[in-house]
């Protein structure tokens, strides 16, 4: 078996009577960027909720570093070493950039290490150094995305999960965000991202899964998926992906 930092094993999940996932299984190999692709209502965002413990699967389990996350609350899961960049960023709008980033270190008690890591993420995103006293809600979309990623990094996670990191950003910022994700991955952090924009995601991912109405219908190395004409037509919105 491969060295998987995250593994979903035959997950079945429901919203009330409606089943969202049908025996969903996937894995994130340590050190890789893995993307989960799919259209609206395919169950992408619900997958994030399952991983973060915001929704409990009815059957199946989520394994992080080989340990099941069953029964853990979201804060407990975060403490295990999963950082999150939520959909549409979800910053604390009236708190400063500095406060937002440091909220990511909420679970840590080593003050010195936190201060060190704070400098490190500011080096990674120099723009935030200029903005550190500004309210996060006043930043541009791209800058907010930086704050969200910096925040996720501050918990020293082994895995960061991202929900549509490029959504709502201008094309210019989209490229910056993809670079940032690669930078984060370069720090040795595994990345699991959910994306609707498949062609973008596959540019930087190592591996991809395609989700359709709660089932994985295709998976493979990102390069193969990007070339697969069937995917381009059926799942990735042919024209857009071309």
């Amino acid at each position, binding site marked *: 078996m491969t060295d998987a930092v995250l593994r979903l094993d035959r997950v079945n999940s429901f919203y009330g009577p409606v089943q969202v996932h049908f025996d969903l299984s996937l894995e994130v190999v340590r050190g890789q960027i893995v993307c989960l692709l799919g259209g609206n209502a395919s169950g992408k965002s619900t997958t994030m909720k399952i991983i973060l413990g915001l929704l409990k699967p009815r059957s199946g389990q989520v394994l992080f570093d080989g340990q099941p996350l069953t029964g853990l609350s979201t804060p407990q899961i975060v403490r295990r070493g999963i950082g999150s960049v*939520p959909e549409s960023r979800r910053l604390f709008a009236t708190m400063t950039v500095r406060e937002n980033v440091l*909220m990511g270190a909420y679970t840590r008690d080593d003050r010195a290490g936190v201060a060190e890591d704070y400098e490190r993420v500011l080096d990674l995103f120099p723009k935030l150094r200029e903005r550190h006293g500004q309210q996060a809600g006043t930043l541009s979309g791209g800058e907010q995305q930086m704050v969200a990623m910096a925040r996720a990094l501050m918990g020293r996670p082994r895995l960061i999960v991202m929900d549509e990191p490029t959504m709502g950003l201008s094309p210019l910022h989209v490229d910056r965000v993809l670079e940032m994700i690669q930078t984060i991955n370069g720090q040795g952090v595994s990345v699991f991202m959910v994306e609707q924009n498949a062609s973008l995601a596959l540019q930087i991912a190592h591996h991809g899964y395609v989700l359709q109405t709660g089932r994985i219908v295709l998976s493979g190395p990102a390069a193969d998926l990007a070339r697969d004409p069937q995917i381009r037509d059926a799942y990735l919105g042919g024209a857009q992906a071309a």
Partner: protein
Amino acid sequence: MFPTSFGPWLDYTINGLVIGNIYALLAVGLALIFGVSHLINFAHGSVYMVGAYIGWLGITKLNLPLPVTFAVVAVGCGLLGAVIERVGLRPLRNAPRIAPLLATIGLSVVLDQAAQLLFSPDPRALPTQLPNWRIAIGGGSIGALDLLIAGVGIGSAALLYGFLRFTRLGWAVRATALDRDAAQQCGVDVDKVNRTVFAIASALGGVSGLLVGMYYNTIDPNMGFQAGLKGIVAQLIGGVGNVPGAIAGSLLLGLIESYGIALFGTSYRNLFAFVALILILVLRPNGLFAKARRLPPEPLTGTFIAPSRPLVLPRWLIGVLIAAALALPFAVQQPYLLQTLGNAWLYALLALSLTLVAGTVGQVSLGHAGLLAIGAYASALLALDAGIPVLLAVPLAGVIAAALGTALVFPAFRLRGHYVSIATLAVGEIVTLVILNWESLTRGPIGVTGVPPLSVAGTPLVSGQWVYWIPLAVLLVFAGVQTRLLSSHLGRTLRAIREDDVAARSYGVDLNRYKGLAFAVAGFVAGVGGALMAHFYSYINHETFPAPVSMLALTMVILGGLGNVAGAVLGAVVLVGLPELFRAAAEYRMLIYGVVLLLLIRFRPQGLLGTV
């Protein structure tokens, strides 16, 4: 009454700021709680009362030094706050947003009644041990207690600012208030944050109660109700969930009250607060300091309709029950029993009225006793002062209650969820206060004596059977009409407003018109109920229909199942009839209502017969 020199005005200003400081201690806590849990905590006033009593125990029984007393009050109330969060609210985390609000009402009733049983309902003196000097300044003066209150107020605000700004837990509180999910994804344990916030808020509230007790040198178990409402008003003036706004709103409210008392007299005090509340809700629902004149989004909406399949009673069973109810006076002769059940039928009219607006239309009214009061006074005064025959006065009173009630609640029609409840609560209080103060019409605090009984052709209908039959007959007619109404097109429209007012509007439903119609029907039913009460009781005053009656009505309709006509009748019989029949000691009755309300919200939100 109208001081012309500067000195008294300075005193009124100082007094206003002192009272404002006390409100601020309450309002800040309410704002914090609203921030993290989107809940308006109606139990906050009761915590304040508990603080006053803990302080009383410390000062008069244990002879503790004052600083120790303050510490004991803060810790005791902080623990109480944590318990309230754990027991009353956390289990309702995933329930509709109005459920925890109702739970705080239940908790407040339980705490107030428990205090009444423990310490007796009589007021107690709370002597201060502070030196009795006053500094004269510019014609006014400041005493040691004024300075202590100001010091506690400013000191608490500074501590709170430091906590929120510089501590890790304080950051977590702010983060949770801004985005609960995102805070959880940073590893914040939001349960701990909630517990902390309830503890801090309750500690401040308890200290506030102690200070008030010292300021007026008197405390009583019911002091919390009005104080809690004032805190809510102050918070709304500043904008819900806004901590600095709550402080500013409190000082403003304190000054308004103090100057208002100077100009109009003490009995008007509470009127200013509630009129200010209605004005704020209508003109600036986001508070004075909000930028835009708009309503806050989602968290405040949602009714307490638990999905359920209502129990459908077969027609023959309803017929048998009605026949049995009608025939009861032939089998039972005790006037006491008939009178008790007659009273239950009268309360059933109130429940019928409330279940229509709260259940069918989803506007949870907390001031429904006000409609009873309007009906009662209208009918009594029409009969006594205008010489109109009672049989004519009663329906006229219904019409007046319908018109006045609808007009008073009309400004709240554009509000949703919690705001409707707060606005109707304020309207109920305003009705009572107007009755108290409009002496030339209502005879003020003396009340109306010698209200003539119902009579036909000169024969008064006061015997046991009539006291039973008349309310029952009226109830049967109204219940029949309401049942028909619910199964009509109109009933469907009203339920559509409850389920999704935006969707209803987008299908062309004029919300104001239908809400108005529902409140008018409800006002008529409750008004007739109140009128009958006036003629059976023969004496009414401004305290005949107090706020707890509104809470009792709410408990009845939730017990029966919101929107359920038969349920409203059942609720009234169970809650008004049974305690009387079992001779449950009167002092335990309100406590029982509070407990019943809490248990229902937690375990059977759909009520006994199910929601419709």
